[in-house]
């Protein structure tokens, strides 16, 4: 049979972000897939070297548009580590709550993308509506819908407004009360099972060898989560579980996402109960004259896609000398995707890609 070269993206409805895959196909079967990133490359790490420590905050959150909050957190954590700034306890709790809300929002976005991919417009619309409810909360705390710049070295920008706790609980209950609907229409749908079972399968060994993190790894049966391994913010203050599945295919990955969302909601409710009173930020030096001593740091956190790391080097000036983000989508999108697409059908390209939870801006930076 004749081998055909097919371009999937960058202009494509099933494509999340500006990303492209070149497919060599034989009939309906993919022989070889080559990921072609770089459509969103802005040279962030280079730009960060030209801006002061504080000026970088608006920049870092734009690296991943789906979940800017984890990007803020990782940069704040690295700066805190380099400059030796302490964070008050209430701020740690606020950070955790805020990040878990961001995780719920990001997972709902992922659910939108996946449902939309399968042609499940109804669930996609619901998920997007519920994500908007989460964004409304962010808007109330920070004033921004998408980009918040809320986490700050030494704490968070401001305390929760009055009565905000109830609003969070209300919103979470609204979303939580729809979980049975989602289950009935989507997660327990027979066609969803048929479409995703054994699609894009990655074994546990392969996942480890190719640097999988986050849902992709947890869907192969490994309980790995940076929030448990190396707790930051207030994740060690409450009990929570790491949802795990063993299939390693698209079906397991989407179920892990669902379980994580529910776990996040439970965690927020527990954190809200335990939240102490007090200050929400420690003073930082004058940002215009802020030089950070000669040092380097590697910090990591669990973003909603997996292990997110930042290698930050300072040489004693008012700007970072070098910053390098280790983003979870990088290996998922460039190594694992090419492997997972082999021998699959063309109809499942978007299916596999979205179930691997790839966001293009994270890869390109």
């Amino acid at each position, binding site marked *: 049979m004749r081998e055909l070269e097919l371009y999937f993206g960058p*202009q494509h409805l099933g494509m999340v972000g*500006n990303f492209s895959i070149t497919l060599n196909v034989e009939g309906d079967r993919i022989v070889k897939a080559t990921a072609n990133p770089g*459509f*969103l490359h802005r040279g962030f790490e*280079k730009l960060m070297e030209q801006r002061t420590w504080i000026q970088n905050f608006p920049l870092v959150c734009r690296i991943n548009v789906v979940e800017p909050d984890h990007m803020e957190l990782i940069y704040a954590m690295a700066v805190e580590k380099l400059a030796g700034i302490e964070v008050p306890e209430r701020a740690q709790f606020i950070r955790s709550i805020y990040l878990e809300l961001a995780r719920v929002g990001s997972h709902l976005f992922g659910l939108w993308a996946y449902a939309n991919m399968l042609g499940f417009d109804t669930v996609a619309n*619901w998920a*997007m509506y519920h994500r908007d409810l989460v964004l409304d909360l962010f808007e109330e705390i920070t004033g921004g819908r*998408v980009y918040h710049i809320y986490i700050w070295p030494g704490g968070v920008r401001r305390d929760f407004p009055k009565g905000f706790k109830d609003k969070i609980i209300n919103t979470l209950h609204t979303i939580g009360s729809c979980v049975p609907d989602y289950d009935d229409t989507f997660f327990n749908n027979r066609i969803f099972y048929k479409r995703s079972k054994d699609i894009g399968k990655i074994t546990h060994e392969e996942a480890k060898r190719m640097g999988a993190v986050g849902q992709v790894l947890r869907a192969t049966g490994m309980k790995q989560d940076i929030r448990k391994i190396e707790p930051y913010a207030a994740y060690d203050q409450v009990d929570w579980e790491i949802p795990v599945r063993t299939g390693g295919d698209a079906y397991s990955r989407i179920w892990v996402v669902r379980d994580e969302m529910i776990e996040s909601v439970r965690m927020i409710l527990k954190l809200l109960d335990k939240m102490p009173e007090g200050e929400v930020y420690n003073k930082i030096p004058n940002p215009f004259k802020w030089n950070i001593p000669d040092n380097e740091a590697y910090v990591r956190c669990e973003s909603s896609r997996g292990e997110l790391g930042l290698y930050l080097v300072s040489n004693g000036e008012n700007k970072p000398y070098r910053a390098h983000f280790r983003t979870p989508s990088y290996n998922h999108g460039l190594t694992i995707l090419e492997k997972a697409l082999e021998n699959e059908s063309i109809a499942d390209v978007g299916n596999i890609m979205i179930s691997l939870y790839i966001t293009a801006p994270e890869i390109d930076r």
Partner: protein
Amino acid sequence: MDRNKLGKWLQSPGKMGQKYSLHALYFCTGCGIIEIPPTITARWDAERFGVIPVATPRQANLFLITGYVSVKTLRPIIRSYEQMPEPKFTVGFGSCPINGGMYWDSYNTIKHLDKYIPIDGWIAGCMPRPEAVFVAVTHLWTLIDKGMADGYKKYREDYHYYRENQEKILGKLEWPPLFSSKKM
């Protein structure tokens, strides 16, 4: 909104059709795409105004350039734009295509997108809210009414200049010129 006025439909069906059936090309050029799903789904529902995303440039007549444009993205943008049937409208979404925005000193993003393709309107802000898309759409209606959304005509007239600018950034373009230029 004069969608329900039959007289206007009989007077100028072409213009009215273009106004109330804006098919937007779904192309995630940048981070602005994050506000497009809310715009087309339950909360804001752009389909009320006839704005729906379509999958291929041949069916589209509105090109929302969502966010910054890197050098690598410029090539598919130009190709998609040239494939769209006329009349076609372009709207730059976000600050970045206007003048580079916060990536003004980045070596890999295009500043001033209107040097390479004609733009009919801009939405400023980072990120513009979904409401801003509707403001842009209603504004575009007025422009279409007055015959001022004529970017595609400009492109036809000054194709030579646009192509020259495109080739300065991208090198020799692999596809033949769309229009044979008169002022060579």
